[in-house]
C-alpha cells in the first residue's frame, strides 16, 4: 500500500505548525499591546479563517498566489517555482486555516499572565526579551503547547482549501483527507476506510495530548526536589 499521503500530510502539518507557532505567538504578543480599536479590527481579521468555509480561504489563496497573479508570476519568473498544484501549496492552505487556533490560545495564555511579573523583571533591570523568554513563555507554556497541538491537528485535517490550491495528484499532492475523498469517489470503499481509520487514530492521540496538557495546567507546581540549577 502506498503510504505517500500519510507522509505528505504529516510533513505539511509539521511545516505549517512550525510557521504558525512563531507567527501566532508574535501576533498574540503584539496585538495585545495595541490600542483597543485597532486590536478589535485585527482580532477579527486574524480569527476569520477559523469561521470562513475552507473553500473561501482556498479562493482567496488562488486569487493571491495563482500563476497569473502578481505574486505567483513573480515566483515563477524569479525562482522558477509554482505556488499552486505542488505539494507545498497545501502548506499555505493549512497554515492559514490553523493560524487562528494558535493565535487565540496564545493570546488567552498571555492575557492571563500576571503583568506584575513583567514589571518586576523590568525594575530588576531585565530586558523585555529576557522577560519574554525566561518568564512569560515558561508561565504560558501549557497554553502555548495546547495551541500548538490543536493547530497541528487542524492542519492535518485540512481538506477544502488544500483541494483547491494543491489539488489531488497521487504521489505528488495527495494528503490523507484528499485521498479519502478520491478513493470513496472511485468506489474503493476499503481503501477509503483504511485512511479514515488512520486519520481517526492520529486525531484521537492529538486530542488526548491536549487533554493531558490541560489537566497538567490545573495542578500545583511540581515538587522542586529534582530541580536544582543556577540561572546562567
Amino acid at each position, binding site marked *: 500500500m502506498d503510504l505517500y499521503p500519510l507522509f505528505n500530510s504529516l510533513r505539511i502539518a509539521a511545516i505549517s505548525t512550525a510557521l504558525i507557532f512563531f507567527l501566532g505567538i508574535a501576533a498574540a504578543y503584539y496585538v495585545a499591546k495595541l490600542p483597543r480599536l485597532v486590536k478589535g479590527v485585527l482580532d477579527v481579521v486574524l480569527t476569520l479563517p477559523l469561521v470562513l468555509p475552507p473553500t473561501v480561504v482556498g479562493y482567496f489563496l488562488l486569487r493571491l498566489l495563482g500563476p497569473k497573479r502578481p505574486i505567483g508570476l513573480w515566483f515563477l519568473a524569479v525562482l522558477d517555482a509554482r505556488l499552486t498544484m505542488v505539494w507545498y501549496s497545501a502548506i499555505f492552505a493549512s497554515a492559514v486555516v490553523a493560524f487562528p487556533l494558535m493565535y487565540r490560545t496564545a493570546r488567552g495564555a498571555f492575557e492571563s499572565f500576571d503583568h*506584575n511579573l513583567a*514589571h518586576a523583571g523590568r*525594575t530588576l*533591570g531585565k530586558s523585555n526579551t529576557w522577560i519574554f523568554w525566561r518568564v512569560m513563555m515558561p*508561565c504560558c507554556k501549557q497554553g502555548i503547547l495546547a495551541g500548538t497541538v490543536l493547530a497541528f491537528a487542524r492542519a492535518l485535517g485540512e481538506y477544502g482549501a488544500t483541494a483547491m490550491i494543491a489539488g489531488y495528484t497521487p504521489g505528488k499532492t495527495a494528503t490523507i483527507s484528499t485521498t479519502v475523498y478520491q478513493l470513496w469517489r472511485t468506489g474503493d470503499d476499503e481503501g477509503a476506510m483504511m485512511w479514515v481509520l488512520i486519520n481517526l487514530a492520529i486525531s484521537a492521540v492529538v486530542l488526548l495530548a491536549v487533554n493531558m496538557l490541560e489537566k497538567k495546567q490545573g495542578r*500545583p507546581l511540581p515538587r522542586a526536589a529534582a530541580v536544582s540549577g*543556577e540561572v546562567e
Partner: protein
Amino acid sequence: MALQVDIHKDFGKFRLNVAFESENGQVTGLLGASGCGKSLTLKCIAGIEKPDRGRIVLDGKVLFDAEQHINLPPQKRRVGYLFQNYALFPNMTVVQNIAVGVRDKARRKETVARLVSSFWLEGQEHKRPGQLSGGQQQRVALARILASEPEVLLLDEPFSALDSYLKWQVELELSDLLSSFPGPVLFVTHNRDEVQRLCKAVCVLDNGRSQPMLPVKELFEAPRTLSACLLSGCKNVSRAREAADGKVEALDWGVTLDPGQPLPEGLSHIGVRAHYIKPVEGPGPNRLPCKVERVVENVFSTVVMLSTPGGNQGFSRLRIELEKERWTPLAGKDPLWLELAPRDILLLTC
C-alpha cells in the same frame, strides 16, 4: 531631598495629582482608601506608568521630566518595587529568583548566598514560590529587590497578602530591614496602624490628590483635613460653619461649640475622636443631649451609638467608646449628656 515627586496624569474620570518629597533613610507613608491612586503613584515612580506632566527626581538624578522629555526606563531607575502579590517568578526557585536581581554577574553566587542567609532562607533555596509560606515569599521578594541594589524602596501594601497571625512577625522583620536601608522608602497602605508603627511622615491621598506631608504624630493628634481625619480613624465628624464670637456650629449634630482655638480658613467640618467624648451630668457649655440608639459590646470596651439634636442619620450620629464598668451606671439614661472638650475638637477643611 532624596526623592522628589510632582506628577499629574489624566484618565478622564480619574485625575492623579501627587506631589511630595521623601528624605534619605525615612519611611514615608502614602495613606489612602483603595482606588485613590496609591499604587499608580508607585508605578509612575518605577517607570511602569508614564505621567502626563511633572517631574520625578531621585538623589539629583532626573527619572522623569515631561518638559525636558526625560523618561528613564524602569531598568535604569534603580527602584526596588515590592508588589502586593510579591511577583515572584513561579517558574524559578528561590535562589534563581534572587539571582535575577543581581546586576554584577561576577559576584552573583556570593551575593545570593549572603541574601539567602540574611533573610533566613536556608533550606528553602531550591523550592519554588508556590511551596513557600506568605512570609517566606515576602522575604524572597525583598532579598531579590535588595540584590538589585536599589536607591529607593517602594512597598505596595506589603502585608495585604498575609494571614493575620503571620502579619505581626513579618511586620517586625520588615521594620528592622527598613531602619537599615539608607535610601528613602515609600510605604503604601490603607491601614492607619501600619502607618503609625512603621512611618515617620505621611502623605494622605484623597481621590488622586495628595495633601501636604505631615509628621505621623500630627496626622493622629491634629489632622487638618476631612479625609486625613477619616483615614486616621476618627468616626465622629459633622459639617460645620463659623458662628458668632469665634464659635462653630456643628450642622449635623445641631449644636454650637466653642473650639477654644482660632478657626482655620475654609473650615468645613469638625471631628471628635470616640474615646475623647465624656458623658456628663446635665447641660453646660459644649454639651449636647443625646439618645442611645445602639450598644455594641467589644471584648474590653463598650461602643455606644447615639442620636444627636441634629438627628439620627449618617454624620448626625455620635459614637463613643467606654470601658465596660464606666458604661454600666450610664445605661438607661435619657437624655445622655455628652461634653466635647475644646482641646479635643478637630477643625477640618476639605
